[in-house]
């Protein structure tokens, strides 16, 4: 029983990490209606930047979170403006190829610049265990969970309470109608893509102390994030959050009870089953076949 509770706790901590990445992916898909295959590479770029800031300026990764959020917002906005926007009217497969191409280019650029070596970021204190009622978690994991909750709550308030949030929601629901109401849809898309990428900026700062950065680290995380997003119904931030928790727990339990190297097989199997049998996601927040 103790083991089970500890595993579930681990799962929730892992889930909060996936949540931050997946919420960003969901924002982009839900609003711009483009699946960003380069999302993981944004994370990778952020993690290398965190590493460089720590190495050269001695910045703690958590301090780097602020510049990372800003930098990735800019990256996302630029990608939307110069790559996605010209392709909005193009065939779907062209949009897929564009982000896949961006992903390939970024992975290999990192390989060219940094080589295939692992780089770890030093972050004093964050890997310290913390004991809660006999169960242990790391400080970094608690920060992750708190950040995920604050992120979702913050985005919720932003979407519901601000005029810009309302314009974004209107655009997500009906591109044309929003445009007729005077919403500058192109600008909304740039902001939405920026926000989605900014989420990964936050994630890169929080993940850096826990995982060493490699050129392919993004692929590792983003495939899981895709599973989460599909599970959560593609369009919904809250669905993505819940989906991330479920995948975190599945990851933790199957790693222990089945085999550590088969945990991905378990959630990819869930992914395929959800896509095929319940494309609206587990909670019915969206539609997968559109």
């Amino acid at each position: 029983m103790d083991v089970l509770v500890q595993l579930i706790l681990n799962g929730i901590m892992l889930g909060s990490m996936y949540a931050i990445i997946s919420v960003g992916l969901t924002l982009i898909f839900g609003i711009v209606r483009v699946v960003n295959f380069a999302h993981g590479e944004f994370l990778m770029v952020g993690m290398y930047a965190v590493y460089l800031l720590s190495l050269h300026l001695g910045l703690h990764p958590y301090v780097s979170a602020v510049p990372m959020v800003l930098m990735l917002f800019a990256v996302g906005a630029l990608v939307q403006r110069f790559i996605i926007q010209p392709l909005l009217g193009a065939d779907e497969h062209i949009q897929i190829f564009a982000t896949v191409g961006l992903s390939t280019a970024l992975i290999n650029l990192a390989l060219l610049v940094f080589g295939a070596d692992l780089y770890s970021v030093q972050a004093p204190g964050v890997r310290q265990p913390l004991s809660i009622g006999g169960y242990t978690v790391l400080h970094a994991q608690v920060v992750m969970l708190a950040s995920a909750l604050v992120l979702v709550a913050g985005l919720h308030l932003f979407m519901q309470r601000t005029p810009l949030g309302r314009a974004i929601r209107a655009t997500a629901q009906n591109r044309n109608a929003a445009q007729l109401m005077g919403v500058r849809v192109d600008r909304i898309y740039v902001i939405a893509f920026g926000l989605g990428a900014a989420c990964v900026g936050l994630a890169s700062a929080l993940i850096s102390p826990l995982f060493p950065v490699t050129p392919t680290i993004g692929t590792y995380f983003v495939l899981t994030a895709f599973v989460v997003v599909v599970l959560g119904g593609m369009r919904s931030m809250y669905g993505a959050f819940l989906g991330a928790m479920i995948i975190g727990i599945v990851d933790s339990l199957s790693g222990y009870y089945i085999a550590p190297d088969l945990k991905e097989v378990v959630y990819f199997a869930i992914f395929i089953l959800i896509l095929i049998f319940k494309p609206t996601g587990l909670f019915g927040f969206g539609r997968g076949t559109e």
Partner: protein
Amino acid sequence: MTVRVSLSEAPPAGRLAALMAWLGNPRVYTSLAALSLILVIPIVVDSPFIVHVFVTICVFAGLSTAWNIVGGYAGQLSLGHMVFYGIGAYTTALLIQHFGLTPWLGMWVGAAVSVAVSVFIGYPCFRLRGPFFALATIAFLEVVRLLAIHFHGFTGGSAGLIVPLKLGWAWMIFQDKINYLYIAFGLLLATLAVSYAIRTSRLGYCLTAVREREDAASAAGISNTDVKLKAVMISAGLTSLFGSFHAMYLTFLEPETMFSLANSVSIAMFALIGGLGTVAGPLLGTVLVVPIAELARGWLGASANGLHGFVYGVVLVLITLTLPGGLAGTFGPRVTALIDRLPGRRVAPDREAPALRHIEGTPGEPVLETRDLVMKFGGLTATDHVSITLRRGEILGVIGPNGAGKTTLFNQISGFLKPTSGTVVIYDAEGRPVTPARADEYARLGVGRTFQIVQPFGKLTVIENIMIGAFMRHTSVDDARAAALRIARLVGLLHVKDVEARNLPIGDLKRLEVARTLATEPSILLLDEVMAGQNQTDTQKMVELIRTIRDTGVTVIAIEHNMQAIMSLSDRIVVIDSGKVIAQGDPREVVRNRRVIEAYLGEDFVDAQGL
């Protein structure tokens, strides 16, 4: 665009002549000459490195060509295609290791396994669209890769698997690398031939139709799942053969390279760069991009790690932004026009099929019945216990205000919607009542329909659009084209037959809807507002066309808002309002029916007129 010289149909004595005629076509001899360079250059240069580059070109061009059958022709963007390559490689290597089976046989076992896996993956995934299909294929690739690592006792796991080194042709392992090139080139030629054959066959047209518009393809009697499955099976088998060969060339297998996501993306990328859905595109893309990568690797060594991938990625983004049709898609027509100026045999002139066959049967007998059709969308009842009978040889007009449920009724009697309750009965050629399950089955039973919102295959020409319909009754491309030409003449589209459908004005698009449906040779024709948006001359032509069609024995049921036209055309009228049949009978009586006037003009009008 196709070179229509059939070898198989020629009598034995004429085969040689047919072959010579085929070779005399400029498009054929220039293609063959260009292809032979892949073999000639490495033989002349005679450097192991160049041979390696060309073997790699053959393998990736072949993989990309095979991928293009699914990704290009069928438009299903698989990004996990290396799963079949890996299966081919591992099956062949393991069969040598455990059973001493020669790779020449092992590769076919691998292909069979891959085909089976492709059905297992394709059948459930084909209902997914665009990015979700791509994601599902990536997920399958990852699952197989992880399983290959996990069951290391069987596959060698991450440590890898070394192919037993037995030299010679029997084992497909050579000291002189040039022998690999012969095999790789042979495989590439075979794959290109398969790809060309599909492109210019009924299957190729059906795949394009399914890619462009699934509903319109169903209405033309094409089973979407069937044709996509055929494409993925052929593609998986070919991909697997290349995997088997490449395993013998590399002699070392590990899950990371055999089930590589990066390579899966690369082969798709080569096809896009060269031209998605074209025969030559994947080869062209590979020839342009692979040498850059291999030369960079050869000259710069490990310091260039990642350089080729970076170039690939940048090129891919640039192509999507500037040349989404790829090289072959953008420049192909111009190059073909140049090649056609060379001396040689020309494409055979078009043939037109004889007139429509007359449909047999007793006029007046029921051909289609609906029994208490109820269709509910959530709280809305779109059709409410609709029972109508369609009689052979009549023109039945269906009228009613907007939102009355007319199109919903059509969707049910053509199989696009399954009624909430009630049944549709079609009487087949032998007079037996049947209820088909899917839209394409309705079409094959002789129920042809048009769509209110026109559904052309935009990137196909007018004649090709009509051929999609004609393929339901004809298997050969020539016969389908002949039948399509005859119908193009009948409906008045002959003068625009080679125009791409997306460039047509609405009047012609409406006629194209009718033409494509007519080409399926229906015995029952469902016309959904084919006169809407037409000017008076066009409307008059359409009325005459419908009469001509009826005179060949086709039974017509038409939804129409153009009252004058439908009243003069119909033998009988059914009026639907709020999902219910409120009147039916002779047109002259129906227009005087109080409930019909109410439905159209409101109760107040009826009262005011004192009717």
